[in-house]
Structures are given as C-alpha cells and as structure tokens.
C-alpha cells in the first residue's frame, strides 16, 4: 500500500535530502506519525502545539488541499501523491 510524499526543500535536511518518500499510512495524520518515526523532528515542523497543521503549511493529496478534504483524517489510497508546501505570496 504505497503512497508517495513529496518533501519540500526546507524539510530535506531532516530526510537526508530525500525528495520523495514512500509511506504506507492510510490517513494524512498517520503519514505524519510515520514520517516522525522515520525522521524524528519532522512532526513539530508540520504541526503546532495543539496538533493542528501549522497555518503556513499546506498539505495536498493529488493536488487537492486537505482543507477541502477531511484535513488530517483524509483517507489515502494506493498510489496517492502527497505534497507538503509552504504558503506563497500572490499574484
């Protein structure tokens, strides 16, 4: 049950410069937990003290913002691509 997570430049120091990471978790929340177990420290970069996704972090599943899906409860299926992207200015 492989899904790929695309790691943004600012986090690659934690992933030994790996850009694409294969995970097996079945929700976004579980993906973050899985990443944390493999790359300690990554969770606090993505989530704030209350456990919510930090306000300047955008997470996408196959190009859709998880805020339009079920946030951290968003379910994943095989082959899904997850992107973690910092908010950027306009336009």
């Amino acid at each position, binding site marked *: 049950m492989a899904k790929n997570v*695309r790691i*943004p*430049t*600012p*986090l690659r*120091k934690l992933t030994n410069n790996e850009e694409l990471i294969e995970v097996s978790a079945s929700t976004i929340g579980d993906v973050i937990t899985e990443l944390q177990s493999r790359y300690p420290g990554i969770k606090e*970069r993505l989530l*704030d003290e209350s456990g919510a996704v*930090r*306000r*300047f*972090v*955008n997470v*996408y599943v196959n*190009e859709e*913002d998880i*805020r*339009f899906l079920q946030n951290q409860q968003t379910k994943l299926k095989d082959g899904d691509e997850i*992107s973690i*992207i*910092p*908010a*950027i*200015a*306009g*336009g």
Partner: protein
Amino acid sequence: MKALKCRECGREYPLTANHVCEFDFGPLEVVYDYDRIRKSFNRQAILARPQTMWRYRELLPVAHEPTVGFQVGFTPLVKADRLAKALGIRELWIKNDTVNYPTLSFKDRVVSVALSRAKELGFTTVACASTGNLANSVAANAAAAGMKAYVFIPSDLEQGKILNSLIYGANVIGIKGHYDEVNRLCAEIAGKYGWAFVNVNMRPYYAEGSKSMGFEIVEQLGWRIPKHTVVCMASGSLLTKIHKSYQEFIKLGLAGETDYHIHGAQATGCSPISTAQKAGLDFFKPVKPNTIAKSLAIGTPADGFYALKVLKETGGSADDVTDDEIREAIKLLAEHEGIFAETAGGVTVGVARKLIADGKISAKDSAVLCVTGNGLKTLDAVNGHCGHPREIKPSLREFEALLAAEDHSLLNA
C-alpha cells in the same frame, strides 16, 4: 538590511534567496537597521532624488544601487473630486498605479526590487507564479535586464494579460488550473532549479517593494498618513506592506503619528479574507475562486493572517463585491475620473463605495483608494457591458438624424 527573520518564531537567517522558516514554515521578512537609516534618510534627502520608487531606497531591500527598474513608481495621486461626490465622501484620492512603468500595474514595484536583488545574488534566470500582472512585469523587466524569464499562469487568463507576457519573449507556461494550483506547482519547481522565483524564494525582497506605494501616498499628501486607505486583497501582501510603510515613516519621523484605518477589498467570488474579517475571525477558510477579478483570485492567501491582523489593529473593515458591482465600479471610476482600471480596481472602488454607504468610512473623512492595475489588460471583463459605438455613413444628415433621435438639446446649438 541586517537579516531575514521569521515572522512567526523570530529565528534569523542570512540574506539569501530563501522565503520560509525551516522550523515552522513561517514567512521570512527583511530586517533593517533603522538607527543607521535614521542618520541620513530624511525628507530633504528624499526630495533631492528622482521621482521614482527608488527615492526611498534605504527602506527597500537591495544592498547596492538598483540595477532593474530605475524608473518605476511615483505614479500620480489624483484628487478625485467628482468620484468623491458620487460616492458621498468629503475628500477622495486615487493612487493611480494603472500608469505604473513599464507594465501598468503595481507589480512593477515588487519586480524591480526582486530582480535587482536577484542580480545581486547572482541569478540569471527569474520566474514567477502569477495571476497575470506579475507575469507581465517579470517578463518586461527581465527582458530589459537581459535575464531569462519563466512565467507560470493559469491558462484561462485574460488574452491581454497573456499577450503582455509573450511579447517580451518570456517563456510563458499556462497551467490548467487556478492560481493556487499554479502556486503549488511553482513551490515544487522553485526548490528544484536554481532560479530566482520572485514570489517564492525571493518573496521577502519582492514583497517589500509594495511599501513604495505607501511611501508615495504619504509624501504626495504632504507627508501625511491618510485617515482611510482602501486596498484590494489577493494574497493580502500589499495591504500589510502599506501598513508597514506608514509604520516605518512614523518610526523614522517622516510622518506624524496619527490615527489611521486600512480597509481591505475582495471580490465576492474569492473572499476568504473579507469573509473572515466580517465574521470576526483571525483565521480564514481557503476557497475555490470564481470571479472576473482574476488578478485577485487567490483562494489560499499567503498573507491572509497578517492582513486580518492589520485590519484589526488599525480598526479597518473589509467587504467584497459581486462581478456586476465590479463592472459598475470600473465604469464609475472611468466616467468620473477618466481612469480605466482593471477588475481589481473595480473591486477597490466598489468596496469603498459600500464602506462609505455603510458609514464604515465616515462621509466627513478623507480616503485614498489604491488602484493597482490597468483596464486595457482586462478588456474581456467589460466587453459588452459598456455599450457599442453607433455606426452611420459619413453623412451630415445621418449624424443629425442620430442626434435628433437621442438628444434634441444638441440640435441647432
């Protein structure tokens, strides 16, 4: 410039092409040495310089003299008496960036800073994610500076905005999606190639360019901060930088401390920030844009949190207008002041009209409306909504018949 600093946690970073805090993804902002700037930067020094945005160079993030866009800025601040009467306010001014140099929008301000800084950092290729105006400005200024340009835009943009990027020889990439999707792709591309992405890795420098609009307003009003400023919001960056410009002028003693309000304008079809403000929230909910104001169609506004904070801190308000109200406001501005604004300008004027009618901007006060782009670029938006020319043969009889049918008072004048 001293450093880049995270707006969320305060961690400092060196002055490189970097826009995001490694720790919490917070945006980085340029830190200045105001004590040093204060020593030589005063009204006299400013007045002795050419009338461009670079007369405020100490407060713009370049290390040396600018190398791109020396002629940008210092657009007219127009006293809009006829529009003031139509909107029912005592005094009204239009900051007219429809005639900014060279690409007729306020984006030339941010691009001249971003490209000057990009050259200082050794980049030869520049890029951007854009709703149109930024693409035009990057394309033009890169051409003039001899840099290679890649601009990424939603593929359904107005024809005028697409041509206005192609003509300069830029690589124009149309993305089948809305701006937020272009943005997401560009965030991924930016990490991969060694390019200066003006609104991604160059964003801390780029965004500061917007302050020049506020500096000019204050100087042109006789070193006075206006009681009300109405600014359109896409990412919300311009609004926060106008606020910062007023704060910096107060800090440096260039303008007196005064009570001022900054108001935000959005299109109803993409109004995450104004909706949050009206609901009294300090966070926004992302939306999927659907509006003719394509230059403002950002559903996930990167500076939305900070824009809401500025609205709150300055006691400003926010509102939004429908597509029909935007077109009406474009006509209102054109017919009363002879200024043809793009859809974003219609949003600003339309919202100002609402805020004055609602008493959120007092009829007894004075207001400045920031009109950020030129209507010649968004002709599609008004085409078919402002009548058609009446066609006649080159015959005096036909002309007089036409006049007689339309307006008897003109006959035998």
